[in-house]
């Protein structure tokens, strides 16, 4: 057989070649698409507050903790929030599901130390019932062994983080513990140094309200604004207020 004849015999039919190329292209495109959709849909799970309805009305209980470093996962050194689900398990999430027109009793276990506010105007508690938070633990140089109402704190020496919901006018500077042996791996237990900060606020109409920490606490990022400050699940999230 001539050389040309051998080459022709080895070559695949044109239609088969085109089919293979098309199939490969479609497979790669599909894989990229699936990965892209998966990436976009990746996010912290919504965690519902414990709701108690009585004749007097709706009350919901939400317990969170703030840690200086999450201690695991792809960003172990990042500062983060965690929330307790109705089974009492700590979940790494910042999407809190709350009922509408309900009184929310929120407790924050603050395991992080002081990170000064960039703007001290956020040292004022707003949007909560009575415009106060109730702190057990350190408030700067003061130490409260019982839950003590606080309405304004010095932004340079007191807050660790804030819980700020612009659309609802809520701003709460979480008082930080002044201890040095801080918990470094979440979830932290009350055996570690901590403050307990409690607030009560009311939800209004159903909606999706974004919240953020306004303290620039993204350590090692420019002006503290990157990383956890701009990543869902760490220092920002949503209040998913659902129709009740």
């Amino acid at each position, binding site marked *: 057989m001539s050389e040309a004849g051998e080459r022709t015999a080895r070559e695949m039919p044109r239609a088969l070649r085109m089919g293979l190329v098309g199939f490969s292209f479609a497979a790669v495109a599909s894989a990229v698409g699936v990965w892209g959709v998966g990436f976009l849909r990746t996010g912290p799970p919504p965690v519902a507050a414990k709701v108690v309805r009585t004749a007097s009305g709706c009350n919901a209980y939400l317990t969170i903790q703030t840690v200086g470093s999450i201690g695991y996962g792809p960003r172990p050194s990042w500062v983060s929030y965690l929330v307790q689900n109705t089974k009492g398990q700590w979940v790494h999430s910042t999407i809190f599901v709350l009922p509408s027109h309900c009184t929310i009793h929120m407790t924050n276990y603050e395991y992080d130390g002081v990170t*000064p506010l*960039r703007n001290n*105007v956020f040292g004022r508690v707003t949007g909560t019932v009575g415009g106060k938070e109730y702190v057990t633990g350190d408030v700067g140089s003061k130490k409260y062994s019982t839950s003590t109402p606080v309405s304004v704190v010095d932004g340079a020496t007191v807050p660790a983080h804030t819980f*700020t919901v*612009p659309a609802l006018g809520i701003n709460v500077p979480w008082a930080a513990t002044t201890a040095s042996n801080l918990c470094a791996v979440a979830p932290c237990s009350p055996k570690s140094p901590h403050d307990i900060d409690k607030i009560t606020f009311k939800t209004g109409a159903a909606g999706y309200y*974004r919240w953020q920490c*306004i303290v620039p606490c*993204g350590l090692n990022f420019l002006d503290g604004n990157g990383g956890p400050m701009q990543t869902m699940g760490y220092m*920002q999230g949503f209040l998913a207020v659902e129709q009740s």
Partner: protein
Amino acid sequence: MADAALTPAAPAQREPHHFARIFIIWLVATAIADILIWFFLYPHLAPGRLTSSAHGDQYDMTVLLMCAAPVLFAVWLWFGYSCIYFSNRGTVPEDGAWYERDSVAIQVSWIAITSLIVFGLFVFGTYELIAPAGAGGGEGPSAIWRPPGAPSSSYAALHPKPWKPGSHPALLEVQVIGQQWLWTFRWPQFGGMETTSLYLPTNTTIQFNVTSLDVIHSFWPYRLGVKADANPGVNNVAYTTTTGQTHSFTYRCDELCGIWHGDMIGTGHVVSQAAFYRWATTEEKKLAPLTRHLPPYSLTYTPSLHGAGGGLYPQLDKPTPKSTGS
């Protein structure tokens, strides 16, 4: 052949005066359009007439529209007329197209008209920038053209005269502070208090001192006709004067500033001078415990080099070995 020779020649069809036709149609259409723009569109054109700068924007855009309409009609008319009267009806010239070569009149007219338009816009734009003194745009830390009563120096801006209803000149300084992802406002004439809400009095010239604590933002209360970049370390001044009308307005960030840029939005209110004064004095008293913790009023606030580990008002930072040189 003999018959043809005897037949009297048909009179040549007289070519109409195309330019005169186009000019007359253009003149009528332009006049109608400009009258419609002035009387019907102008009063409704964005951003409205709620402040001097908004009204200025509205007037400028109306004038530009009235200038643009003749140009637009000229192009459309020439195109349409050419399609109707100069289209190819089977008599293609040898080189494939008709054109007028080396028409000095057309060239001179073109250059003269376009030069006139550009020069006219230059004069109009410059006059509009200077004459109203405060066009609503950020004019940097020391604006060249200021409205009456505006402080002429940074020192004067830091120490403004007290504001009361009816005071003349009724200039109110409002410091706008952008930070990821909220706006706050400081009021040097009310004890340096800082609020998260924005109220303005009617019939008052406002001096917005716009700055940022972190990245670049842009303060944009659209209906006030104000837009000024908020740069860290820079005081960007913008002026406007409210009218007697009370209303609400939206302010937003117009500079992509991070993940929640789109949520950096709020609602401001223009209220009567008396209502504003009541609000401001009440807030001043209410916020006194918080104002104690604020740094002294300043035109800019420089973030600390300590980043997340330190206070971002330098006066609150403890000196580090590096910064003290030890």
